[in-house]
């Protein structure tokens, strides 16, 4: 307890990092980013309070590191520092074959692992010009929608936790557990399934699959009303989210925001509707668009999307056609020389796979356009001028998954 245990170290620390609050930040250390559309919001750096949110912080749900500049409670600037979980998946994939690289992609956005695998499989199929059997198409769509539900449930729980209510997290996990059990039975894993392979799906669905999904749908239809009762209708929650984190339609497009985050600002960007893949053109569903542009609009988009996903599953679960679950493919896949791009709607937004092939068994260059990366870049624009608590809520409505951002 004595202050003189390590006097040298104490002095050094004091000299090196002056921890006094309200100190002046050197301009060369925290260089200012120019904000182009709104110069009035640009912060003056002198005498501000700089706080690190992350890399270990309860609100960032991972190892995101935000350096935020505060004036009192008001956020002046948010600067993300990334790379804490960067595994360079793009480089890794360059040495893996077209069958092998798909499993890595489920480690990027682990909450929509099926969609990532799906997007990669689709890109390879596009190159090989494989026709996926109808049964596999329906199974893929069902799995995608179940994953979307699971992801949105987790997001809902985490969102409520970020604004301070802890109970919703457990309620969300209760329902998510049922989806995970369904996944476990059919795909063999709960999170990183590696179920979609080029040409179809890895194994046929489990005999219990249809029964369990129907049970889940019946169960979840009641529970989603409880979600609304507990959080959506709550006056505190509405006050916390309405009118904060506003981003206009033009800015959302310019920042490349996709998914629920952009649809909350009135951008029509659902790849399932715009460029339908698999059987999405045969099922009836609405693209949810909210015009609010604030945190509450983004929240409502995802809540309504859950109901749309239920209706898609409802339409498909009894109509899985008989037949092959996997197209016949060669043992070694070789993509022709060229460039292939496939786009898919994951739970977080548009996921793009860009494969440059030189004709070999491995991709020459592969690029994953991850939705979280673009969505995060808009955080600074949204958060300026709001309170710390609102910034946390905004971050939650963007539905960030950090491995998806870092790749």
């Amino acid at each position, binding site marked *: 307890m004595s202050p003189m245990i390590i006097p040298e170290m104490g002095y050094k620390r004091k000299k090196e990092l002056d921890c006094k609050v309200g100190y002046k930040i050197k301009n060369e250390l925290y*260089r*200012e*980013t*120019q904000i*182009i559309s709104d110069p009035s919001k640009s912060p003056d750096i002198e005498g501000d309070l700089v706080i690190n949110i992350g890399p270990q912080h309860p609100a960032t749900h991972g190892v995101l590191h935000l350096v935020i500049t505060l004036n009192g409670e008001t956020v002046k600037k948010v600067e993300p*520092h*990334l*790379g804490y979980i*960067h595994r*360079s998946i*793009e*480089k890794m994939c360059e*040495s893996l074959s077209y069958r092998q690289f798909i499993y890595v992609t489920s480690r990027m956005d682990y909450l929509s692992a099926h969609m990532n695998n799906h997007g990669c499989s689709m890109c390879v199929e*596009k190159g090989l010009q494989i026709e996926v059997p109808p049964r596999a198409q329906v199974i893929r769509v069902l799995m995608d929608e179940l994953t979307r539900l699971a992801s949105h449930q987790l997001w809902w729980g985490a969102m409520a936790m970020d604004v301070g209510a802890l109970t919703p997290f457990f309620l969300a996990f209760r329902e998510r557990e049922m989806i995970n059990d369904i996944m476990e039975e059919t795909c063999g894993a709960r999170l990183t399934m590696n179920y979609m392979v080029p040409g179809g799906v890895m194994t046929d669905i489990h005999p219990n699959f249809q029964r369990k999904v129907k049970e889940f749908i019946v169960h979840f239809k009641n529970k989603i009303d409880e979600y609304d009762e507990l959080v959506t209708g709550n006056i505190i929650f509405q006050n916390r989210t309405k009118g904060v984190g506003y981003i206009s339609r*033009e*800015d959302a*497009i*310019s*920042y*490349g*925001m*996709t998914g629920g985050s952009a649809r909350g600002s009135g*951008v*029509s*960007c659902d790849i399932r509707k*715009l460029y339908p893949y698999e059987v999405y053109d045969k099922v009836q569903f609405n693209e949810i668009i909210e015009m609010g542009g604030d945190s509450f609009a983004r929240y409502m988009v995802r809540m309504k999307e859950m109901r749309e996903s239920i209706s898609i599953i409802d339409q498909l679960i009894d109509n899985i056609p008989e037949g092959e679950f996997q197209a016949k493919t060669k043992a070694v896949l070789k993509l022709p020389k*060229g*460039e*292939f*791009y496939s*786009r898919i709607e994951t739970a977080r937004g*548009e996921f*793009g796979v*860009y494969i*440059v092939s030189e004709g070999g068994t491995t991709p*020459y*260059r592969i*690029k994953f*356009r991850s939705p979280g*990366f*673009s969505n*995060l*870049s*808009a955080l600074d*624009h949204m958060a300026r001028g709001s309170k710390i608590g609102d910034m946390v809520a905004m971050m939650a409505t963007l539905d960030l998954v950090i491995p998806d951002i*870092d790749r």
Partner: protein
Amino acid sequence: MTNEELKKRISEILPGASFEEGGQWLNINMEAKDWRSFSNSLRDLPELNFDYLFCLTCVDWKTHLTMVYHLESTTYRHTIVVKSKLDRNAAEIETVSNIWRTAEFHEREVYELFGVNFLNHPDLRLLILPDGWEGKNPLRKDFEDPVNMIKL
């Protein structure tokens, strides 16, 4: 607009552009020095109106680098791919982060992973790599990490 119309209109704006077809989308090859004015007209001309940059990346071809921009118009839903060859040793291209804001982060990523220098970028710093990173750019083909890379 169909690909043919796009081709016609774009060759009016940028006479030096060459086109590749047969892929998924219309590919446009252009010189890096034209990019500044060309990107502005792509965004601002009302009949083109490419307001959504959904993918920005770079490919290392061992002899040169190629910047690849995937652009889409949210009004007309037409898509083009713009490509530009860059010198591998002195890669430089004009930034588009003032036109498409999403490019700010994507360009920072390309800057550190490929070593492309974006002119007039507002905040060209390392984003993913640790501060003080020295050495080669990890996504280039000649990058070797003797410590962390596992040879299969």
